[in-house]
């Protein structure tokens, strides 16, 4: 469904992503893990068209989207729930949800109801300014907002950042539910343990290159991963 081939991204002199290739198949949950500065966010931003790759190709459903603008990429069914939530703080919660469906012109009632079912707190806070939500509530809002475009593939950049363990669990359960409804998921996580448990396929990024890949289970059992990302010693 989504294929990244030899992707390179430069910022001035430094190469943040040094030629990575990976694939996300339809219906899968794929996760990218890796330490700070490994190039995970940059990879997703390149897929979304926010940064221009210096080399390589990004193929979505058979067509090359490497040089297409972000707005059109959303239109094709790729959405990014960005690092740090990036909700619109001076719009209401409901407006934030609605703006996620900016490119759609059909009736949103069902989709809004679905968001409310997944995150009941968002219904309660409907008319409150989004900036006054707690961090975790803002994260839920960001996920809900991304869903509103009816994406084929949803990319999430550290959705668990700064959340209480219980809320993280909720968010992961919801991601699973979203996936079961047919949305492909590409997930970046610091919380490698939970991400690997959830994922069908995982890639480990280290300083701009893919250091390891395998099924979630394989990587969970891999001693190197255990030591570097799961904080366990064998």
């Amino acid at each position, binding site marked *: 469904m989504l294929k990244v081939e030899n992707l390179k991204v430069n910022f001035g002199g430094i190469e943040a992503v040094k030629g990575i290739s990976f694939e996300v198949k339809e219906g899968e949950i794929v996760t990218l893990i890796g330490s700070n500065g490994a190039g995970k966010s940059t990879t997703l931003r390149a897929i*979304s*068209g*926010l940064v221009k790759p210096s080399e390589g190709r990004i193929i979505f459903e058979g067509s090359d989207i490497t040089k297409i*603008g*972000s*707005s059109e990429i*959303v*239109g094709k069914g790729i*959405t*990014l729930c*960005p690092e*740090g939530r*990036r*909700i*619109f*703080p*001076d*719009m209401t919660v409901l*407006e934030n949800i*609605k*703006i*996620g469906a*900016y*490119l759609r012109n059909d009736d949103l009632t069902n989709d809004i109801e679905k968001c409310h079912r997944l995150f009941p707190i968002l219904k309660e806070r409907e008319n409150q*300014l989004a*900036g*006054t*939500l707690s*961090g975790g509530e*803002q994260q839920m809002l960001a996920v809900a*907002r991304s869903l509103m*475009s009816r994406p084929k593939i949803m990319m999430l950049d550290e959705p668990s950042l700064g959340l209480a363990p219980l809320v993280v669990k909720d968010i992961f359960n919801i991601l699973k539910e979203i996936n079961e409804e047919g949305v492909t998921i590409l997930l970046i996580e610091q919380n490698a343990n939970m991400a690997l448990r959830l994922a069908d396929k995982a890639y480990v990024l280290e300083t701009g290159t893919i250091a390891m890949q395998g099924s979630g289970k394989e990587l969970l059992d891999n001693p190197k991963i255990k030591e570097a990302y799961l904080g366990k010693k064998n």
Partner: protein
Amino acid sequence: MNINQLLQHALTGISVGGCYALIAIGYTLVYGILRLINFAHGDIFMVAGYFMIFSFAVMPFPVAIVVTLVGTTVLGILIEKFAYSPLRQAPRMSVMISAIGVSYLLQNLATYLFTALPKAYPAIPGLKQVIKIGDISTSLVTILTPIITILLVVLLLWLVNRTKIGMAMRAVSRDYEAASLMGIKLNQVISFTFAIGSLLAAVGSILYFTDRMTVFPFSGSLPGLKCFVAAVFGGIGSIPGALVGGFFIGICETVIKAIGLSTFSDAFTFIVLIVMLLIRPTGLFGEKNIDKV
């Protein structure tokens, strides 16, 4: 000064203030979305004056008004396309210098094409008609200006707060990247913002010059600066702020003239700017920040 004179001056002040408000909104909208002080805005207002003079000469006035409004709107969009949008990734200072350049370009182009001599502004039938309310006599345009201003601001607030494109404007003014992740096309929204700002400047220009009766290539400079101050006073980025700022500057200016201190009236505007920047840099309705990271 008796009560009638006072009312008379108040009316004039409110009317001038309405024009200022319409121009100030252009500064505020553009600043809100690009964080750019569009120094060419006052000159767009001036060019709108010439559009009216020349179209009025060859067509019936309702058509001339439409031509002026459309022409000014298109001018605003073109300026953004050619002078600002190529600098989207550049530092803000470069865009500001480009804006100053456009301002000089318009002034000099107008001087070259139309000479520096003031040209008579056409009298739109009915607008200069004298109206008597009790002992006060005034022209229709004086009464019409604040009414039109308020109507347009209500309409604009509705557009910004209740429509999809308005939602996109607010999103872009807050966070470019997050907005594009929603599928919003930045360039489209920015063009639209310039279109609205220029359209309001054109309306302001018609009302203002009908009252002043002449246009020359520098007609836009001082009103432009005053309206910029009005926008800062109200809190740049805020539409109600621009409205209040416009009326405030217009009324104060008229009062100062009325008490015989005409020479001081322009300086007053800039004292307002300095005082405001010193005591409350965000202006009356300045952006409140509720970011949570």
